[in-house]
């Protein structure tokens, strides 16, 4: 039993199809519990009022925006090193999910920032690096779409993902240097004295767990679709050859 067994598309499809209902249901349950808990059963913040509650969408989506790219980095590496097609397809499947998560984080952040900071957008390091991440996602997806040969596309996009990761991290710290921020620092760390109060952080953790499961379910689902699309292509090619 090793993780490489799932490089076999058949095995991958069988297993993901078995776990996917559980994933869908538990992510839906966690997100709805977390959001209802967060929206209706937490007090208003003494300074931010009820606008603080957008945190239950903002933080989980931002978390997944970064982790989706990280997952693409890992699967790209697996493709480059071990050349498992499922891995490349998983990276391809994760990119649109990641770009949507980035967009949700940016939009909810703007909606939150308007009443709190008095502006929809500021060239704050965190905001800016998310915008740059968004551009990286767009470029990555555009490159996948532009190339016909699937193997070439997988190779080129994985190398772009590797190089892009380095530059994305570089940009993250470069923008720190370039402008001071409005955005608060990390406030869910284990090693910090001051964090978000428990009344807010508990439903937030539930939402985050829900988003993680949602992401996994979406990636499994989309990877399955990609695998089937490729099978159909192979079938059509075979039929043409026979006819």
């Amino acid at each position, binding site marked *: 039993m090793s993780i490489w067994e799932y490089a076999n598309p058949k095995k991958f499809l069988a297993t993901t199809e078995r776990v996917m209902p559980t994933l869908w249901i538990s992510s839906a349950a966690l997100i709805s519990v977390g959001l209802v808990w967060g929206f209706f059963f937490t007090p208003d913040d003494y300074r931010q009022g009820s606008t603080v509650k957008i945190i239950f969408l903002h933080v989980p989506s931002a978390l997944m925006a970064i982790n989706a790219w990280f997952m693409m980095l890992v699967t790209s590496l697996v493709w480059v090193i071990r050349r498992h097609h499922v891995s490349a397809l998983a990276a391809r499947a994760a990119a649109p999910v990641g770009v949507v998560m980035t967009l949700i984080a940016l939009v909810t952040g703007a909606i939150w920032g308007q009443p709190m900071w008095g502006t929809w957008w500021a060239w704050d390091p965190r905001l800016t690096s998310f915008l*740059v991440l968004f*551009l*990286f996602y*767009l*470029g990555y997806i*555009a*490159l996948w779409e*532009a*190339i016909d040969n699937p193997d*070439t596309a997988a*190779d*080129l996009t994985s*190398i*772009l993902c*590797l*190089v*892009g990761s380095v*530059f*994305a991290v*570089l*940009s993250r710290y*470069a*923008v720190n*240097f*370039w402008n001071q921020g409005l955005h608060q620092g990390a406030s869910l760390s284990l090693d910090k004295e001051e964090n978000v109060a428990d009344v807010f952080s508990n439903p937030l953790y539930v939402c985050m767990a829900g988003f993680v499961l949602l992401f996994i379910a979406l990636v499994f689902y989309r990877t399955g679709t990609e695998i089937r699309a490729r099978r159909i292509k192979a079938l059509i090619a075979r039929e043409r050859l026979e006819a």
Partner: protein
Amino acid sequence: MIALLFRDLKLALRAGGGFGLGLAFFLIVTVMVPFSVGPQSELLARIAPGVLWLGALLACLLSLDRLLALDWEDGSLDLLATAPLPLEGTVTIKALAHWITTGLPLVLAAPVLGVLLNLPVQGFLWLLVSLLLGTPALSVIGTFGAALTVGLKRGGLLLSLLVMPLYVPTLIFGAEVARRGAEGLAVQTPLLLLAGISAASIALLPFASAAVLRVNLR
């Protein structure tokens, strides 16, 4: 390697090579800026370092799709790939030729355009230094982008989309050096970081470019 460099330079300099196009683009962008933001010399002096950096970056970007595409079309890239020179060396030379024909003229033209934008006197030196250190990174990163999109028809727009985010750190530090220089502040930190980005890009990116090119030539 040197023969290849001279070949690329010759091709770029002769008619139809597009030498000077980037330079002319840089000139026109800089000239258009006062038309769009107004002729107040104070405002122009403040935005001059950033405008010059952005203009240089765009001019660099503009010339990228010719970097490998012409050799790809007439098949000489296949010959270069089978030559004894490793592909990493080839792309490095290509980037160097691109820098000499595009980056270096931009660096030399920037102070002249700085006069047009009313750049403060103390800013000229640091503008030159920052461009001199930063444009090699632009060429090397651009070569990677050109290698990614070389096999594509109409790859030009995609090339810009791919390369622009990669240019972000270079632009931030380069423009910061120029800005601080113009305002008479200490430039050491961003200067060192800019030099670091250039050095690391030159050292590492040719491997990525060569890998990508091998995939495209497969």
